[in-house]
C-alpha cells in the first residue's frame, strides 16, 4: 500500500511539473518581458529558448538512458543519431525543397535504418570494443558531413527555414514540451514492456539472460534501434524548434559526452533522472558563465561539470534520482519491516 502511494505521488509530481512548465510563456508575458522590455537582462524569448533546449536535450538523454541505464551498454557514438535526425530535416527541407512533414518521415526512416545497421554490425562486439566501434561510426558520420558539402553545407552546416507558425518561440516552447511528454510516455511504455524487462535482465547478467534462452544480441539491437530513433527525433526537434541548424559537430564526441553526463548525473536506469540531468546541465551551461565576475574559472564551466560528473561516478553511481530512490526504499523497508527490537535482558 505504501508503495502504491509512492507511485501515485510520482505521477502527481510529474503532473505538477508539467503544470508548472505550461504557463511559463504567460508568466514572462505578464512581467512585461514578452513586450520587449528594454530593462530585461536578456530578450524574453531567451528564456523560452532555454526551456525548449532543455526539452530537446531531455529527449536525447532519455534515448541514451535506454542503452546505458536499461541495457547496460556504453555507446560512444550516440551523437551520430542526433546528427542524422538534424541533417535529415535540413537536407529534405533546404536541398530537396520538400515540406517539413516529409522530413519527419525521412528522419524516422533514416535513423531507423542506420540504427539497425550500426546496431547489427557493432553489437557483435562487447564492452570496450563496442564503445570503440561506435566511436568510429560516429567519426565516419562526422567526416562525411564535412566532406559531402554539396548536401551538408560542409563545415558551415545548413540552416533550416521553418513554417511561420514555428518561428514563434512561444509555440516552439509548447511543441517542445509536448514532444518531451510524448517521448517520455513512449520510452516509459517500452522500458516497462516485456522487451524492457529482458533488457534489464541483460544489464544485470548477460550470461544468465543467454542461458535463459534469450537472443541477447537481437534484444540489444532492438534497444539500439529504439534509442537511435528517439535520438534521431531529438535531432529533428533540435533543428526545427531549437537551433534551426544542422552542423557536422553534432556528430562529434562532444554531444555524446554531454548526454552521458546528463544521464549519469541524473541517474541512469531511471526515466526522471536523465530529464533532470538534462535540465541541470543545460541550465548550468548558461548560469555558470554568468558568474565570471566572481572567478574567471566559471568561464570554463565544463571543467566544473566534469568534476561533478567524476565525483558522481565515484561516489554516487546511481545519480541524483537513483540515490534518492534507494534512500526512499530503504526508509520504506524500515517502516514495513521494522528492525527487530533487542530482547530485554
Amino acid at each position: 500500500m505504501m508503495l502504491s502511494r509512492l507511485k501515485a505521488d510520482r505521477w502527481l509530481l510529474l503532473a505538477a511539473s508539467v503544470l508548472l512548465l505550461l504557463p511559463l510563456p504567460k508568466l514572462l508575458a505578464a512581467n512585461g518581458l514578452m513586450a520587449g522590455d528594454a530593462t530585461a537582462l536578456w530578450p524574453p524569448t531567451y528564456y523560452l529558448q532555454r526551456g525548449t533546449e532543455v526539452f530537446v536535450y531531455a529527449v536525447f538523454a532519455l534515448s541514451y538512458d535506454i542503452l546505458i541505464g536499461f541495457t547496460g551498454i556504453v555507446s560512444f557514438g550516440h551523437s551520430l543519431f542526433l546528427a542524422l535526425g538534424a541533417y535529415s530535416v535540413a537536407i529534405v527541407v533546404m536541398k530537396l525543397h520538400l515540406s517539413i512533414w516529409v522530413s519527419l518521415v525521412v528522419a524516422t526512416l533514416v535513423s531507423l535504418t542506420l540504427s539497425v545497421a550500426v546496431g547489427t554490425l557493432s553489437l557483435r562486439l562487447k564492452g570496450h570494443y563496442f564503445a570503440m566501434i561506435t566511436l568510429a561510426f560516429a567519426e565516419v558520420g562526422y567526416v562525411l558531413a564535412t566532406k559531402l558539402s554539396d548536401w551538408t553545407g560542409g563545415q558551415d552546416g545548413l540552416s533550416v527555414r521553418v513554417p511561420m507558425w514555428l518561428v514563434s518561440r512561444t509555440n516552439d516552447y509548447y511543441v517542445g514540451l509536448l514532444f518531451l511528454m510524448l517521448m517520455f510516455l513512449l520510452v516509459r511504455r517500452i522500458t516497462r514492456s516485456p522487451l524492457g524487462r529482458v533488457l534489464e535482465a541483460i544489464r544485470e547478467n548477460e550470461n544468465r539472460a543467454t542461458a535463459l534462452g534469450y537472443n541477447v544480441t537481437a534484444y540489444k539491437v532492438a534497444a539500439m534501434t529504439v534509442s537511435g530513433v528517439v535520438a534521431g527525433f531529438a535531432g529533428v526537434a533540435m533543428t526545427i524548434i531549437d537551433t534551426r541548424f544542422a552542423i557536422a559537430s553534432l556528430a562529434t564526441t562532444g554531444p555524446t559526452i554531454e548526454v552521458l553526463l546528463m544521464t549519469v548525473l541524473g541517474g541512469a536506469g531511471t526515466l526522471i533522472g536523465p530529464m533532470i540531468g538534462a535540465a541541470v546541465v543545460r541550465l548550468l551551461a548558461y548560469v555558470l558563465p554568468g558568474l565570471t565576475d566572481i572567478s574567471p574559472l566559471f568561464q570554463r564551466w565544463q571543467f566544473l561539470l566534469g568534476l561533478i560528473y567524476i565525483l558522481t561516478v565515484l561516489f554516487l553511481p546511481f545519480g541524483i534520482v537513483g540515490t534518492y530512490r534507494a534512500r526512499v526504499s530503504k526508509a520504506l523497508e524500515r517502516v514495513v519491516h521494522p528492525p527487530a527490537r533487542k530482547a530485554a535482558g
Partner: protein
Amino acid sequence: MGTPQLTLPLFITMILNGLAIGMLYFLVAVGLSVIFGLMHVLNFAHGSMSMVGAYVGLTVLRLFGNPAVGTAPSWAFAIAIVAGGGAGFLLGWLTERFLVRPLYKRPLFLVLLTLGLILVLDESVKIIWTANPQGLVIVPALAGTVSVLGQPFAIYRVFLIVFGLTMIVLTWWAVNRTRVGIIIRAGVQDSDMVQTLGINVRQVFSLVFAMGVGLAAMGGIATAPFNGVYPGMGGEFLLKAFIVVVIGGFGSTVGTALGATVLGLTEQFLPWFFPKFAAVAPMAVMVLVLLLRPEGLFSFSGRRAG
C-alpha cells in the same frame, strides 16, 4: 587531374614521412594498448593526457626562450620532452592510484570515468593555457631540410624516426627482457593467475599506467614542431591511437609498432590515390578490423576479443 607523377624520390620521402608520423603514433598508442591488455581499462582520456604532457613540455621549453621564433636552445627541447613525459608519468600514476583503482570491480563505471576525464583535462588545458592554439615550436638544430635523392626532407622528421625507433627498442626491451616485463606479459595473459602466484600485480598496474601515459605525453610534445600544441589534439590522438591499437592488437608492443607504421604510411599514400575517401579510410579500416579480426591484424596468439 593535376597530381604530379609519383617519382622514386617522392615515393621514398613519402615513405619516410609515413614512418616519422608512425613513430609518433606508436608513442601515443603503446600505453593505451598495454594498459588495456593488462588491466582491461580502455583509457578514453589517453589522448587528452598526451595533450597535457605536450602543454607542460611547451611551458618548460618557454622558460628557455621563445620556441615559436627559435630562440629556445635545442637542448631545451630535450628537457621539454623529458618534462612532458614526466608530467604524463605523474598524471598517469595519480589517475591509476586514486581514480581507476577504486573502480576495477565496476568496468562500466571505469569507462564512464575516463570519458569524464576527457572533459576535465581538456577544460583544464583551456583554463591554464587559453583555448587558442599555441603555435609551432622551432628546434634550431633540427630545423631545415636534408636532401633525399634530390627531394627536401625535414631534419626534424629524421630525428623523429630515430627517436621513435629508440623508444620502440627500449619498450620492447622493457617488456621482453626485464622482470617487470615478464610480470606485464604474464598479466596480459591472466592477471589473476599472476596474483595467485604471489606477485603483487597491482603495483605493476600503477607503473604501467604511469609509463604508458608518460610515453604518450612524450609523443604529444614531439608533435609540437610540426603540428603545434592546441586544445583539440587530445581527441585526434585518441582516435589515431584507437586505430593503431585495433590494427595492432591490444596488449602487444610489437603489434602497436606495426599498427602505427601501417597507419602512418596509409595516411601518406591514401590521399594520393583516393583524395576523396582518405579522411574516412582510417575509420573504415578500424571498423573492418574490429568486425573481422577483433584480436588485431598482427596478433598471432589467437586470443579472441571479449
